[in-house]
């Protein structure tokens, strides 16, 4: 068949995610030999880069569409992160190496996790040489975890990973956590094999009995046993395409998960709101015996705790402050996703400035001149109050503020 030289460019709307794929526009990061990251930016006819920049921003925003239904979520989370430190982690297909990228992202993840889930706890386990080792216990102190991650000895890669041993170790600790919190395991797996001493099906059975949810992020390829574990325990399984995608999938684990039907009978959970005092002389805190001048007094046993949120070292009461609880609450009442206003609907009566930052919106005629693929009106509308926001305000409201500014005003 002699095809005339007609270039039929089939443009999907989804094809705008140029940054998601490797530079050649094809699949995985390891397929490219070397990255030409400068190729993404191309000037338009007038020599301006503005269009390209704004299109990148719009694609960034596209990834923000999250699940925003009001459902029951597990706010008090107990999460174990299992890091595979086998020989496959030393591969360099993700820059600078899988292991280094993992540790960098994990630090950011830990900070963000405690920011969004202040009353939750985290623990870290590593697996190498067929055995697993607990780096840090379940605790709510983020600096402790980050310190351990920086220790050089903890970063060495050796041998083969063991899925079963690491899951058993995590399960051992999670079983003792109180039932009103969620029990989760997140596995960062780079290897395609696992070296287990026994039958992993038994382990899966125990996981289901104990209501533990396992999610796995694969760095190499999809492995059937990982997929099965995630399906049976109602977790998520994702395989990484490249560095940016890795960060996206990892950060998807930050919002609290929806509760499964298993645990519906939850009673009251006892929490204490400590009083903050300052003293004339330094006195010892009950948790570390460190002298500090002022602290938080537990309402039950009157002992001093140095930082919140924590568990009182003497009587075991969970101590939180109201801002911590408030930060967790906004996951239950999420801001609805803002819809993009199609170009046709913009008329003379539409607002000319963004409601959030009062920056003027782009004129319609300038937008029309650009590449059709990059056209978006730049206006995003809240479905409840019908006010329009720019893309920056949209990202800010959904990521940081967690409240729509006009909806709050109109509550009166």
């Amino acid at each position, binding site marked *: 068949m002699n095809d005339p030289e007609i270039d039929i460019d089939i443009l999907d709307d989804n094809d705008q995610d140029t940054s998601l794929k490797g530079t050649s526009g094809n699949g995985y990061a390891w397929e490219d030999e070397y990255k030409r990251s400068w190729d993404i930016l191309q000037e338009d006819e007038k020599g301006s880069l503005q269009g390209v920049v704004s299109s990148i921003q719009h694609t960034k925003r596209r990834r923000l569409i999250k699940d925003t239904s009001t459902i029951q979520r597990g706010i008090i989370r107990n999460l174990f992160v299992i890091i595979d430190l086998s020989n496959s982690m030393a591969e360099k297909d993700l820059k600078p190496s899988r292991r280094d990228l993992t540790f960098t992202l994990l630090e950011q993840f830990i900070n963000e996790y405690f920011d969004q889930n202040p009353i939750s706890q985290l623990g870290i386990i590593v697996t190498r040489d067929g055995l697993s080792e607990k780096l840090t216990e379940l605790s709510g102190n983020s600096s402790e975890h980050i310190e351990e991650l920086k220790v050089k000895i903890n970063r060495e890669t050796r041998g083969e990973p063991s899925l*079963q041993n690491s899951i058993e170790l995590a399960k*051992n600790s999670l079983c003792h956590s109180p039932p009103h919190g969620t029990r989760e395991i997140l596995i960062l797996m780079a290897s395609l094999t696992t070296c287990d001493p026994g039958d992993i099906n038994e382990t899966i059975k125990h996981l289901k009995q104990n209501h533990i949810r396992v999610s796995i992020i694969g760095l190499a390829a999809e492995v059937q046993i990982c997929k099965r574990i995630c399906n049976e325990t109602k977790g998520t399984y994702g395989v990484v395409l490249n560095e940016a995608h890795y960060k996206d999938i990892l950060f998807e684990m930050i919002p609290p998960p929806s509760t499964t039907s298993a645990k519906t009978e939850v009673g009251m959970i006892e929490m204490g709101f400590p009083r903050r005092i300052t003293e004339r002389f330094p006195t010892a805190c009950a948790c570390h015996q460190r002298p500090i001048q002022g602290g938080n007094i537990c309402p039950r046993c009157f002992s001093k705790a140095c930082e919140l949120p924590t568990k009182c070292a003497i009587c075991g009461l969970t101590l939180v402050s109201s801002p911590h609880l408030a930060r967790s609450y906004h996951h239950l009442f999420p801001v609805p996703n803002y819809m993009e206003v199609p170009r046709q609907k913009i008329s003379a009566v539409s607002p000319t400035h963004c409601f959030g930052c009062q920056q003027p919106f782009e004129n319609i005629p300038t937008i029309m001149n650009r590449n059709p693929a990059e056209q978006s009106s730049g206006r995003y509308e809240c479905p409840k109050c019908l006010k329009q926001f720019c893309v920056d305000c949209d990202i800010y409201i959904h990521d940081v503020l967690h409240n729509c500014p006009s909806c709050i005003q109109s509550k009166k």
Partner: protein
Amino acid sequence: MKLEAGEELLLSFPAMVKKKDGTIHITNCRLAWTLEKTKEILISLPFNSIKSQSINAATSAKIMLRVVIVGQSHKKEQFRTFTFTSDNAVSDREKIKNALAAALQKIYQKHQNSTVLNENPQLNETLNENKTLLTSKEIQIRQDILKNYKDLMKLHMELVLNGLLSEEEFWSIRQNMLENEKFTQKKGQASSSLADIRPTHNEGNDIKYTITTEIIHSIFMHYPSVKRAYDENVPDKVNEKDFWKRYFSSKFFHRNRTQGKSHIDTKDPIFDKCLEEDKFTGPSEEEIEKVPLLIDLTATEQNQFEGYGTKPDFTMIGGSSKSNMQLIRKFNHHSEIILNSLHTINQEDKVEINNEIKKNLVFNDLTTKEEEIQMPLQIKDQKRYFESQVTLTNQTIDKKILKKEEFANYLENFKIWHLHLNNINNDNLHNIFEEVFNKLNNDVIVYNQDKLSQLNKDLNELPHSAQQEINTYQLVYNELLKHFWFYMPIKSDESKETVDKLIKILKNTEERFNQFHSKLIHEYQNKAITSKELFNSLSKSIKRAYQVYDEQVEVYNKKRIKIQ
């Protein structure tokens, strides 16, 4: 004889102790002796308190059995001697002796790795005097934990070994730690076999192979014929060293290695036999019954539906490529090992594989994902969340509407209003100013003083032993308080007793601390004052504990009166 719960009487015979008549009993928990006249148990020896037993000669006048009791190592050993008085004294004694020996053997097994106990003799004693039996593994775990955490070790020595708290109580609030340490993990078999050893080359023409026991196990697992040869020949016919030497120089070993030395001609009877065993004689004649059609590789057109015009497929016949046979055999053996380790292959699964064509044709990835069941948010009283935000805005402020004249009045007064500072009484002003200013100044000075470094300096100037004492007191106080709150609120008589005991210990410790501290002040004066301030927070907690204790005791006593 009166038995405890769960105790079974095994044997009873008449015996005398210290010239008094009675009966000796053996149960499944202990050795006991009752007095004949009153039938009460005068001697009760649980098995873990018996060190050993001995008997005298069967021909002597009195048939005696002596039992040595476990005691403190520096004290004299204690004995109990039983003299058998019945007609069949010797056989009686034999029976008792055997039963006791069996029981002691069981206990000995449990305390097998008792090197642990030798390290800490005091710990050994407290553990031995304990009524409940601890296995040696648990003792090891506790030792490990104490070794790893110096603070815990200090606490343990202070409290448990001085008799203030019992061992059980100490560990009862630390169950989590014990559980964590108990976790053991085994290392699984790696796929890459250790049996493929590369020789470590030396200078010259010598080739050196290093073997460890792990490698030997690996070789036996992957080559069962070598294992058979080993079992038959070593150590009777061939020395172990020679066996391995011959293994490495045999054709068998080099047959799979194509690098270099593949032309070994030495004939070696043992390993040639191995070669013979592994030689391929053609695919096995037995037919595996009922292989499900979906995974049967040899199924051809004959046992399938009519062909669709494709050429008949005869490639899937076992044993067609003879040269690779050894390798394929090895891989199959390896897969067998892996599959055998799975325990969940049972009869029911075998039946399920039965030709469910439809189920096997559907790929989950290509079907639409079913929606996850999500629980809608059911906050019982949703108003309570929003209440705090709403009440502030809903307060109906009594709005007073100003009339025009009133407003004009206000405006007039406002225009002529003047700030009259010189009407204020001067003297008072000065005093007020001074008071306020001084107070503010003091507070700021006090706040800005670096109390922390002062404290640290003071503490460092105290002698090391005093510093350690202070630290120990802190730990002890914390520990006692932890135990106290563990038993709150008081629910039963036993916990009330424990709490009473704890409060007493707490008061004692307070006294001791006060004495210690007054001594410190006497010696070091000012420097010791800051260290006393250090305990302010703790003293508040202690007062609170006393207060709660008094309240709880009142409530509990009232409850008891009601019941009675």
